[in-house]
C-alpha cells in the first residue's frame, strides 16, 4: 500500500519464534529449565515413540479391515506430547482428530482410541481424563468449546486451563477466529495450539492463507501469538508451559503455532501421491522430532541402543494387549443409540426403542 501523506502507526506487532534443538538434536543456544532433567526428556521421548508405534499398528489394522479410517500423526508427535506434558491433570484437553499423542499422554487408553476409530462410541467414554473432550472431526469446531470450557473455569475461579489443538486447515474456519476473538475479549484461560503440518489433506499451507505465519492470526484477536519449531518437543513444551501458566495466572489466551510436517497420508483413506511427491516429503524426514530428541539424549548419555530396543519391545507389547482388548470387545447394544441420546429416554421415543429392540432380537 502506498504511503499517505499524513501517517503514523496505529499499532505494531511482532511474532516470536521459539526453537531449541536443531534438526541434528543440537542445542546451540542453550535449553530451558525443563530440559535440565533428562528424565523428563526421556518421558517425552517414550511418549513420542509409543505414539508412532501405535499409529503404525492402527494403520496396519485399518489395512487389514480391522479398524475404520485412521489419521496417523507420523512426524507430528512432538506437538501432542509437548503440549499435553505441559498440562496439569485437572486441565482440559480438546483435541482434533490427529492428537493421539496428546490424548495418550493425558491417559486415554489405546483400547479407547481403537474402539473409537473402530466405530464404537464407547471409545470416547474415557476412563482416565473424564473431563477431556473426545476427538473432534468437524474441523475447527472444537475451538469455541475450548473457550466455553476455559470460561467455566474462570467463572468458578478454578486455576485450570483449557487447551485446544487444531490443524493449519482449521485456522481458516470462522469458528477458529470467533473463538480466538471471544477468548481475547473475555481473557479466557485457554491455549490454542495449531499443529501446522503443512497440509490440509491435499491443500498446502500456502493455499490455505496468505498469512506468513499462522501465529499472527492471534493479532486479530488481540492475544499473543508465538511460532515454535513443532518438531522440537522441548520448544513445544516450553511454549505450551509458558502459555498455560500465563492463562492459569489470569492473563488470558495465547495462540501457539507449532510448525511440523505430515510425513504420511492424510488418513488411511487418502493417497498423498496424488498431490505431492516423494521429493516434497523426504527433506522433512530429516527434521522429524523423534530422531532429533534421540540424538540429543544419546549425546547427553541419557539414551542407549539397548534402551531403544527395550522401549520398542515394551511399546509393542502394550499395543498388542490394547489391540487384543479392542478386538475382543463385544459389540455395543444397538439400543445404546437411543439410550444415551438424552439423560433418560423421553416417552415419545419409547416406541422406537421397543421396535429397535424387537428388530435386533429377531435377526440379531
Amino acid at each position, binding site marked *: 500500500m502506498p504511503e499517505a501523506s499524513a501517517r503514523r502507526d496505529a499499532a505494531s506487532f511482532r511474532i516470536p519464534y521459539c526453537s531449541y534443538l536443531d534438526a541434528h538434536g543440537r542445542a546451540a543456544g542453550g535449553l530451558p529449565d525443563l530440559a535440565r532433567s533428562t528424565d523428563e526428556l526421556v518421558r517425552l521421548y517414550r511418549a513420542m515413540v509409543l505414539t508412532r508405534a501405535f499409529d503404525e499398528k492402527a494403520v496396519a489394522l485399518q489395512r487389514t479391515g480391522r479398524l475404520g479410517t485412521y489419521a496417523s500423526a507420523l512426524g507430528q508427535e512432538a506437538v501432542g506430547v509437548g503440549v499435553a506434558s505441559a498440562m496439569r491433570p485437572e486441565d482440559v484437553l480438546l483435541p482434533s482428530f490427529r492428537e493421539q499423542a496428546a490424548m495418550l499422554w493425558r491417559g486415554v487408553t489405546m483400547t479407547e482410541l481403537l474402539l473409537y476409530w473402530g466405530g464404537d462410541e464407547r471409545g470416547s467414554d474415557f476412563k482416565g481424563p473424564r473431563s477431556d473432550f473426545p476427538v473432534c472431526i*468437524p474441523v475447527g469446531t472444537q475451538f469455541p468449546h475450548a473457550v466455553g470450557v476455559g470460561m467455566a473455569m474462570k467463572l468458578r475461579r478454578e486455576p485450570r486451563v483449557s487447551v485446544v489443538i487444531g490443524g493449519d486447515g482449521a485456522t481458516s474456519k470462522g*469458528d477458529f477466529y470467533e473463538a480466538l476473538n471471544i477468548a481475547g475479549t473475555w481473557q479466557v484461560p485457554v491455549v490454542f495450539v495449531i499443529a501446522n503440518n503443512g497440509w490440509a489433506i491435499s491443500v498446502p499451507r500456502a493455499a490455505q492463507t496468505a498469512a506468513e505465519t499462522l501465529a499472527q492470526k492471534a493479532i486479530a484477536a488481540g492475544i499473543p501469538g508465538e511460532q515454535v519449531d513443532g518438531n522440537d518437543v522441548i520448544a513445544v513444551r516450553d511454549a505450551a508451559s509458558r502459555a498455560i501458566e500465563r492463562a492459569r495466572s489470569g492473563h488470558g489466551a495465547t495462540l501457539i503455532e507449532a510448525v511440523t510436517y505430515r510425513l504420511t497420508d492424510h488418513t488411511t483413506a487418502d493417497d498423498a501421491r496424488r498431490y505431492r511427491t516423494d521429493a516434497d516429503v523426504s527433506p522433512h524426514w530429516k527434521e522429524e522430532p523423534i530422531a532429533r530428541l534421540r540424538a540429543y539424549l544419546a549425546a547427553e548419555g541419557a539414551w542407549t541402543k539397548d534402551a531403544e530396543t527395550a522401549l520398542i519391545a515394551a511399546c509393542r507389547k502394550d499395543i498388542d494387549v490394547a489391540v487384543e482388548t479392542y478386538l475382543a470387545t463385544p459389540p455395543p447394544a444397538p439400543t445404546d443409540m437411543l439410550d444415551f441420546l438424552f439423560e433418560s429416554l423421553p416417552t415419545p421415543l419409547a416406541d422406537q426403542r421397543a421396535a429397535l429392540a424387537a428388530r435386533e432380537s429377531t435377526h440379531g
Partner: protein
Amino acid sequence: MAEITLVEAVTLALARTMQDDPSVIVLGEDVGRDGGVFRATDGLLARFGPDRVRDTPLAETAIAGVSVGLAACGLRPVAEIQFDGFTYPTIDQMANHAARLRTRTRGRLSCPMVLRAPYGGGIHAPEHHSDSVETFFAHVPGLRVVIPSSPRQAYGLLLSAVRDPDPVVFLEPKRLYRSVREEVADDGRGLPLDTCFTLREGGDVTLVAWGAMLREALAAAAQLASEGIEAAVIDVATLAPLDASSILRSVEITGRCVIAHEAPLTGGFGGEIAARVAEHALLSLLAPVRRVTGLDCVMPLPRLEGSYLPTADMIAAAARDVMSHR
C-alpha cells in the same frame, strides 16, 4: 399476583433459575446493560452481575459453541440469539455438537444448555427478523425444541428447559411477547417437556398449532364454536421430541385434523404431525388432514407479511372444510 406478558415471564423464569442455581448463566448479544433487544434479560445484569450475565461479541456460531463448552464443563448457559434469522449459523454447533455430546461420549459429557431466540413473524420487523425456524432444530435428534404460547407456559417451560440435563432450543413467538397478559405465579414450578397441552376440548375437529399460530387456532375455535362446531385445540409447545399421542387421541375422537404453522408448508413440522396421523389414526379419519401454513416462499418484507401469515379465518375455513366431509 400481577398479570405479565410473555417476555416478562421469560425474564421471571430466568431470574428464578439464576436465583435457584448458581450454575445458570445468561449470554448473548446485548443481554447485559441493554437487557436484550426485547428486554427479555432486563434487570438480570444488575441483579446477578457481569459474571452471570454477559454480552458476547457478535458471533452466533461461537455463542452456540462456547455454550457447548460451558455446559460440558458444568455450567448451565442460557444463550440468546437475537432473532430467528440469525439462528442458522448455530445449526452446525447445535447439530454436530450440542445434540451429540452425551451420546458420542456415552454419557461421560453432557450439554445442559438452552438456546433462546425470539421467532416468527407478525410484528412488521425488518428482513431476516421473522423466520420460523423450528423444523431445522426439531429434525436434529438430541435437541429438545420448545415453543411457549402464553406467559404461564413461557415461565414453566423455560424453567424446565434450563433445568433439563440436555440441550433445549427455546423459541419465543415474538408476536406474542407483549400481546397477551396473564397471571403467572413465580412458584418455581416447571412444566413437562414431553407432552402436548390440550387447551380446549372438542369433539368435532382437532386444531393443532404452536407459538403465535396457537392463538389463531384458539380464535378459530371460538369462531367455530359460535357456529356449533366444537374444536379441540392442541398446543404442541414441546415440538421435539414429539408427543404424538395427545394429538392422536384427539383425532381418534374427532376424525378431523387441521394443523397450523407459520413456517413454509414444505418440510414444515406440520408434515410430521400429519404423517403421524396418517400412520397411526388413519382409520379414525373422516376427512383429509389439512395444513394451514406459510407459503413455500421466503418470508416477505412487512408490506406482504399479511398475505404470507396464516390467520384464524384460514384455520376456521379449513376446519369448516374438513367438517363438510361426512
